[in-house]
């Protein structure tokens, strides 16, 4: 089983105007759950709501775009395939990023939320890009390690960075990322951390250390992510291994052994993708490895659910924007990237999605929209916290296969 990172519940995070209805949330959870087990047919059956959600964000009215366009010389078209609930939609009187972009540039933009899972999406594009054909989207949103895989395979085009002056606003700590050392092929879309998520009613105490994950007191009520790099990453960090420097399987073997023991002992109840909110809220899980943005949004409904950066370190990740090889609309893609790397626009996205923005200067802009959010330590961690985070190294193909196989064996697949 594989994971889908963005959190459907995240949509309710931020200022009140962006609340989804409970029904929509449940439907989206179902749709994402389907992605987790890769049942496209059933996904289609219960995922129709995300279609309507995406049409909210992109009414696709060419006329609206061009008439309001200020620089609409020719316009052009653009197709961005992103994770669900990962951009501010046009709703309740607020104009979403897509519509603001279309109005500003005259580009006719199509936006879908079909990127549900890195591995599953890769399986769908592999036969097409592998044969040298082009896929429909002009921008897709692979997580860093997957972006690295696509770059290594030569399945993405270099970004026309000369047309993206705002790329200079990229956060300093995201430059020279392991998956794209020269930053030629990818720009981060949103970023975040994996650390400890827990329900303080169930643990009875503050959680600060990864040792708590293996505390027999919580036997059978512990979870972990099916995202290998996050689960193995935080365990390795607790062992003092620098995960950004991994080159072989042997360096990580102790973490796999520790996880295997915890699984055989029944310490770990389940491995999950982003479907752990209910388990954490209702006490099936007392403590698990989770994603920072998710926990912030669950906490709004249930203050007992908390997130902790383990004192030994948390993993940091980024979902990126890349242009699949052969896209005819690279220029429009560059316009879009430039648009969302403007801190004013990026702050609108941050206010709605609740993840950490890769753009410098967002905090100041966000303070004008939502002063409380601008003080959120999960959105704007201080330097000490950031110093605790590490990104997983980009693994060579054969080493990655070893990691994946060992991890799958542990999670029982």
């Amino acid at each position, binding site marked *: 089983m594989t994971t889908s990172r963005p959190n459907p519940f995240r949509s309710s995070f931020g200022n009140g105007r962006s609340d989804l209805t409970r029904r929509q949330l449940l439907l989206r959870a179902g749709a994402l759950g389907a992605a987790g087990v890769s049942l496209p047919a059933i996904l289609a059956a219960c995922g129709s709501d995300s279609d309507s959600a995406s049409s909210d964000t992109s009414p696709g009215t060419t006329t609206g775009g061009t008439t309001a366009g200020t620089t609409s010389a020719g316009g052009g078209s653009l197709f961005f395939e992103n994770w669900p609930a990962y951009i501010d939609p046009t709703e309740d009187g607020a104009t979403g990023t897509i519509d603001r972009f279309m109005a500003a540039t005259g580009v006719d933009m199509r936006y879908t939320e079909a990127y549900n899972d890195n591995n599953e999406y890769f399986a769908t594009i592999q036969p097409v890009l592998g044969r040298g054909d082009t896929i429909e989207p002009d921008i897709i949103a692979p997580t860093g390690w997957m972006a690295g895989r696509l770059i290594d395979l030569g399945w993405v085009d270099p970004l026309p960075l000369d047309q993206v002056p705002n790329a200079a606003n990229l956060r300093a700590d995201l430059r020279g990322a392991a998956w794209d050392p020269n930053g030629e092929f990818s720009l981060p879309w949103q970023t975040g951390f994996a650390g400890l998520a827990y329900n303080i009613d169930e643990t009875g105490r503050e959680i600060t250390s990864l040792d708590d994950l293996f505390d027999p007191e919580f036997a059978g009520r512990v979870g972990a992510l099916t995202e290998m790099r996050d689960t193995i990453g935080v365990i390795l960090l607790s062992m003092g291994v620098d995960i950004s420097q991994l080159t072989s399987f042997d360096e990580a073997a102790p973490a796999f052994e520790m996880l295997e023991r915890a699984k055989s002992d029944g310490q770990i109840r389940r491995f999950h993708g982003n479907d752990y909110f209910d388990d954490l809220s209702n006490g099936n899980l007392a403590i698990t490895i989770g994603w920072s943005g998710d926990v912030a949004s669950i906490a709004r409904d249930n203050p007992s659910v908390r997130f902790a950066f383990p004192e030994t370190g948390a993993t940091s990740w980024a979902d990126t924007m890349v242009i699949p090889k052969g896209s005819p609309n690279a220029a429009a893609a560059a316009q879009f990237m430039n648009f969302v790397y403007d801190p004013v626009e990026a702050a609108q996205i941050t206010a709605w999605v609740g993840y950490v923005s890769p753009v410098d200067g967002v905090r100041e802009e966000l303070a004008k929209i939502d002063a409380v959010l601008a003080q959120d330590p999960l959105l704007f961690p201080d330097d000490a916290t950031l110093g605790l985070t590490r990104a997983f190294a980009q693994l060579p193909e054969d080493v990655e296969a070893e990691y*994946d196989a060992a991890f799958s064996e542990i999670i029982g697949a």
Partner: protein
Amino acid sequence: MTAVARLGRLRERPELIGLGALLLAGALLAAVGTRVLTGPFAIIALASVLASVVALVLVAVSGTPEARRKIAPYGLLKPGMLWLALFYLAPLFTLLRLSLSTLPSRFAIEADFDWNFGNYVDAFTDFGPQFQRAFLYAGIATVLTIAIGYPLAYVIAFRGGRYRTLLLGLVVIPFFTSFLIRTIAWRSLLSDNGIIIGAVDWFRLGGLLETMQIMDDGRLINTPAAVIFGLTYNFLPFMILPIYVSLEKVDVSLVDAAKDLYSTSTAAFTKIVLPLSLPGIFAGTLLTFIPAAGDFVNAAYLGNPNTTMIGNSIQDQFLVQNNVPLASAMSFVLMAIITVFVVIYSRFFGTEELA
């Protein structure tokens, strides 16, 4: 001259032309489907298939009554044959070929066919526990669906009266909701603080359920029992409906006749009703056991890392490990084992109509 003579003889045996055209069309379509024939050859093959269909229609429209009568069975078989060739034989052959191939690199799109039986060795040696669990859980679930479904179908068929259709509808209605949504819903119902655990505590049944190994350390969710329960729940209608259909056809007067001859109710049931309903049980078992053995949704949502089934492993090999040859070999092994089970089962329990 001989060719003309041969053609003349064939004209007297139109059924041979029908059979030949049927087999040839099937083989050609399967060859195109497996990409044995490509490019211009594929176009020629498809044109031949089309021509054979056109010829069939021509015979049907303008042939002699005798020719039409003889060729009719082959004509009627043709749509099914072509369908099976393209959507069953061709994929099956492709899968078999893939399962004996090796990927030159992890993300290569074409596997090299090299009689790599190592994939089958890996499938057997690395995934033994998952295969065992798949058949164990599916087997228990099938028995449970019979135990639950038979009495239900019996009551609906014999005591339902004019409410039969309504009752049958009530059985099916919950299943209009997506399979996945229903399975996920059980996560909440079975959760540690859920209503079912609440009821168990209220009636102080925890100890009993623990002894029966249904509960594990006070939990229902993420246990083997939960996976089996989910399979049972999800496949129950596939057992009820065929049993109902076979029971509905049983003539009640047979039971009355048995009782007139001083049979007990029990004997009347075991000697008359039960044997007559065996085809329903047989069909229901196949409809339940086969998909249940390959299921991965219940294990993924209701199980724990120690209860995964072979479906989860195949899914993982296809989509996460990108090891398509191994995944194909595992699929083939699964199919082979199920086939053996079904053959044995139908030898012992199959009825004449079905075996």
